């Protein structure tokens, strides 16, 4: 990843800043441990392997989102899958030596498996699973929420192949008091301190034991892209992407709610009780996000379409609903004054997104917005405005819309 060119550019910048005489304040421990080298650019090159049309939010750590019109594929291809990294990707990966260790106070024993052992010992399954970043849509919160300003494209639905986590856990044996699992991966903390854990999240044991919860080594029939967790990761559809730990090395079976990095504070948690926008929420009133809310995107046409009067506008996209399924999708050409029911396909399997399509007749020339609204199997729909404000800007499932002009 670290090309010669970018290295040169960065070290040049480092020395340039010195020449300019920027006063550098270093605390006690800074100079040796955090060398003044990495100037991370405003306009970085695209991460190798990703489509040039994706939007880089940051290169350290890599955070890249997919514009909705590039999510038109029913199965998201590798080059169009968003990247949400909390730390740096592992620098060296030896697949042959990679192992997954199961431990924790509620594991009956500690066991390690190589990837070959996982493949040989357990049955492999393939599921198409929707992974959406918990902060997808953060950019619209008001007052603004801190963090990467995701718009709508931090979502994907690829085909993942691996073994069921429950088969591994049954092989190890779990105690009756098991309530949670927590993962650990091989990513590197931004400070490069090897002692610091980048992110270690988890799920209640019930989610861990679902059929579709995989320890996966392949995506769309190929190796998982490095930035998306190669060579091994957890995949749990319908929950914030952060539960699907990448570069997976350890799973701890816990007798308490997992207390790893980014399980507490504002991270992946929202006020248990709704708050007014901007309110300060004490830690004890924050609850961990579980299933994601119902949501949809219009993947075709791309926003900005110009059509001629009398033409029919074809619209299509995907809808998903966390642990639930999508019952209906409606589209509106008039800001919700009228809604037209779209055709909706069933999911490829549980926790996979569903495809919708509709043909819209736009009555006259002028500016239109096409809004899509999905409804889940419990009858809950997407809001048209940005819903429940929360400190870190999670769970914005407001309707997606595109602009269209009829001339």
């Amino acid at each position: 990843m670290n090309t010669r060119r970018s290295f040169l550019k960065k070290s040049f910048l480092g020395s340039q800043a010195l020449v300019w005489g920027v006063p550098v304040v270093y605390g006690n421990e800074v100079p040796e441990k955090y060398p003044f080298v990495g100037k991370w650019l405003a306009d970085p090159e695209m991460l190798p392997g990703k489509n040039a049309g994706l939007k880089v939010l940051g290169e350290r750590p890599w955070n890249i989102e997919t514009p909705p019109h590039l999510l038109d594929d029913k199965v998201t291809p590798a080059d169009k899958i968003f990247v949400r990294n909390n730390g740096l990707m592992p620098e060296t990966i030896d697949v042959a030596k990679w192992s997954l260790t199961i431990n924790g106070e509620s594991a009956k024993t500690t066991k390690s498996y190589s990837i070959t052992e996982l493949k040989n010992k357990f049955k492999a399954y393939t599921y198409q699973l929707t992974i959406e970043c918990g902060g997808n849509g953060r950019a619209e919160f008001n007052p603004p929420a801190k963090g990467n300003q995701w718009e709508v494209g931090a979502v994907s639905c690829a085909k993942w192949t691996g073994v069921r986590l429950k088969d591994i856990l049954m092989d190890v044996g779990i105690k009756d008091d098991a309530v949670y699992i927590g993962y650990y991966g091989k990513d590197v903390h931004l400070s490069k301190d090897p002692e610091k854990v980048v992110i270690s999240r988890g799920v209640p044991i019930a989610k861990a034991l679902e059929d579709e919860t995989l320890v996966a080594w392949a995506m769309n029939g190929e190796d998982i892209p490095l930035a998306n967790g190669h060579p091994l990761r957890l995949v749990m559809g319908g929950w914030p992407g952060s539960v699907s730990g990448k570069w997976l090395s350890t799973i701890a079976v816990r007798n308490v709610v997992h207390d790893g990095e980014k399980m507490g504070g504002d991270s992946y948690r929202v006020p248990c009780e709704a708050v007014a926008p901007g309110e300060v929420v004490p830690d004890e009133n924050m609850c961990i996000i579980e299933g994601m809310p119902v949501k949809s995107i219009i993947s075709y046409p791309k926003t900005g379409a110009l059509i001629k009067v009398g033409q029919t506008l074809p619209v299509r996209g995907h809808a998903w609903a966390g642990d639930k399924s999508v019952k209906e999708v409606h589209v509106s050409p008039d800001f919700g004054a009228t809604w037209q029911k779209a055709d909706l396909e069933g999911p490829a399997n549980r926790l996979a997104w569903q495809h919708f399509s509709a043909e819209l007749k736009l009555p006259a020339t002028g500016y239109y917005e096409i809004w899509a609204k999905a409804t889940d199997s419990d009858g809950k729909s997407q809001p048209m405005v940005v819903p429940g404000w929360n400190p870190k800007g999670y769970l914005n499932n407001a309707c997606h819309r595109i602009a269209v002009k009829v001339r």
Partner: protein
Amino acid sequence: MMEKKNDLLEVLKKATGALIGILSLALILSLGATYLFFFHKPSPKPVIAKQETAAPVAKVEAVAPKAENGTIDEETGFIIDAGWELAKTNCTNCHAATLVTQNRATREGWEGMIRWMQRTQKLWDLGENEAAILDYLAKNYAPENKGRRPNLTDVEWYELEGTK
């Protein structure tokens, strides 16, 4: 006489020892230089870094090109304004500059982010520069009221092909 001989021997021993030491050092240095010259691949932890961080930097201030307030620093995307160099120096060592520029917050909000980074991400004490950094961020990256749903902006219009 014997004593003197022994002394001489000692001196010779010491001189030889010193010579060996110097030669070893030279060998190590040249090997190091050879390694750096031929084999050193770009790594996230370059060897030069320590020296850079430790070097006194205040002397060469005159070289700095004067950028105009309100323009954008090409390297980081930071808005040029009082305090921007401090932000650049302190806020882009561990993470992308865009993690700063894509965010909007009040002074208190930015301070909260700094405290969070100090608590969990090993950000150092910003010392007397903290106030200037906070002033810079609060002024240039202040929240705007976006309401409940902003208008669609930056739409690139194009002819949609293949419609009936």
